[in-house]
């Protein structure tokens, strides 16, 4: 078992743990925390998807000539995607927190059960 599989497995477990939190925690801040755990898990999965055994970072330097790159570097594309995903994740988290503040303002509580709601 190489570290790619471990990372992949850990990523899935992180998502599961986070999902558990999202579905069972009743405090909105904790739901957001759980969500960021899910996010981290997904990022881990994505990086693992690009990982290749015994290869180096996709940066050409003195030790790595451009011509050798195809046989020596890991897949750079998932890394680029993760970069994007991380930044998007921060944006989403920040926005969720802003909503949490507003909800607190309106409802004086962050317990999801006690928040006024629309129905049916």
């Amino acid at each position, binding site marked *: 078992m*190489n570290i*790619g*599989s471990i990372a*992949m*497995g850990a990523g*899935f477990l992180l*998502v*599961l743990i986070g*999902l*558990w939190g999202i*579905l*069972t925690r009743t405090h909105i801040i904790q739901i957001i925390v759980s969500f960021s755990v899910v996010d981290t898990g997904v990022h881990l999965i994505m990086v*693992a*998807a*690009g*990982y*290749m*055994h015994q290869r180096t*970072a*996709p*940066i*050409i*330097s003195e030790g790595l000539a*451009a011509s050798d*790159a*195809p046989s020596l*570097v890991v*897949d*750079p*594309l998932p*890394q*680029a*995607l993760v*970069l*994007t995903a*991380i*930044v*998007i994740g*921060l*944006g*989403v988290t*920040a*926005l969720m*927190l*802003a909503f949490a*503040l*507003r909800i607190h*303002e*309106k409802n004086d509580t962050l317990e999801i059960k006690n928040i006024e709601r629309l129905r049916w």
Partner: protein
Amino acid sequence: MIRTFGIILTLIGVAFLFFSLFLEYETPLELSGSASYYAASTAEDTGSANLVSAIVVTYRGLDTLGEVTILFLTSSIMSYMLKTKKARNQRTFRESSELLRTASALLVPFIILLGVFIFVHGHLSPGGGFQGGAVLASALVLLLVADPLYTVQSRILSVIESSSGFLYVLLGLSGLLFGAGFLDSRVLPTGRVGELFSAGLIPLIYILIGLKVGTELSNLLSVFHSVQGQDLMEDEGGAR
């Protein structure tokens, strides 16, 4: 109780789904598809030593533009969603120690320099606009820790933010007008791989991204920071 049971069952289902995926995963031995193309031709195409940077800025530049836009959205939304009332006088922050204040005053320029270094060298070494921008924002964090009453010049921040965003789009357009497509970085000479002045537009764009991300994150931070001590604007309206 039933609810918890249902959630457990559902998560077991999710676990089963993940497990099925996990079984299908194996680390590849060869680069496939587009990855092999990137590995083989990035240096030649763009002149960037950092393949990830080349992908982020050039090949998938549109994603990055979108990503910057998301941060922009977040900080814009924040600016009217968490609009605070005019500052009240009794703000409840502890005075921070003299030591901290002096230290931060000394550190901040270096941190900013580090951030700039990171995004200027994005095409050469790990790091780039996002990382550099985040470092810039952390300088602000330090300032705020040292002096909670520090007022951020949000006007300047937003001018930098907007104009770097606008310039980013313009640089992209220049690719369309003088190069082969929107965001084509080969409008400037690609130079020799590994040199500071190489990789066409990539360093320029990364600088703009760095500035933009840095200011956006700073904006976010300062909005959240200011929220701590002040009340939010009242909301209007009733049912709707």
